[in-house]
């Protein structure tokens, strides 16, 4: 039974990873791509790790998997934030169809 739950979690995780990568290819600019990659890949990878933990049961492997999941949950949004800020600072423009850019307005003041 735990095996089945674990495999279902792993399959859902891989699906989210795939959709995240499709979003990464299809979205038009850095910021939208970051949205796809951080959200889908974070949840997908966490589900993969939780699935592994469920299958292997209490032990060395599941402890490592859960710790990795927690670290990914903490570091991935921070990394995305750093990339977005770095991209903006180095002058990567938003997609031309973007509706509003308060950040640029603030810089001009």
């Amino acid at each position, binding site marked *: 039974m735990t095996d089945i739950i674990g495999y279902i979690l792993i399959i859902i995780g891989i699906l*989210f990873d795939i*959709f*995240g990568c*499709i*979003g990464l290819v*299809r*979205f*038009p*600019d850095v*910021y*939208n791509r*970051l*949205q*796809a990659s*951080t*959200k*889908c890949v*974070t*949840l997908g990878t966490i589900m993969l790790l939780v699935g592994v933990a469920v299958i292997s049961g209490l*032990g*060395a492997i599941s*402890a*490592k998997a859960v*710790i990795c999941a927690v670290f990914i*949950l*903490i570091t*991935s*949004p*921070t990394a*995305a*934030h750093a990339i*977005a*800020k770095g991209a*903006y600072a180095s002058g990567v423009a*938003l*997609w031309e*169809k*973007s*509706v*509003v*850019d*308060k*950040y*640029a307005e*603030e810089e001009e003041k």
Partner: protein
Amino acid sequence: MRRLIYFVLAFIIWMLLTWQIDAQVIIAGLIVSAIVALLFHEILPKEHLVFISPIRMFWALVYVPVFFYYMLKANLDVVYRALHPKMPIKPGIVKIKTTLKTQSGITALANSITLTPGTLTVDLTDDGFLYIHWINVKSDDIEQASEFIARRFEWFLRKIFE
């Protein structure tokens, strides 16, 4: 004091990662945790002692399923936008104001915003404003945007961090 807490945390994580009780492993862990605690104790927030309270831990536990619900919703939203042939996105950077005061609270809010529906924190200012990249801008007004993006987390995070 901060060094001690950091040391204990680092050692617990080390023991979980190695997952074996062995003299060599424990000695190596003690040495590494001590070095790490000496070098990096400053990353613990200044107000760290207030976190040792059952009420805050209770709200933190309540926050986990709420957060995962929003995260799942965010993912389905991004999947929908990525797979839709016309790609219904309307991106832009908006400015929101947060009512949280502590550094750790604002950090948690920024990370929560990044992982939840269509929003990504780009920058934050010292006076409590955050710049958010929003994949589907509903309003560029500061008040309304804050209402949409931050309110649902602030209530919980205030209970946990302030």
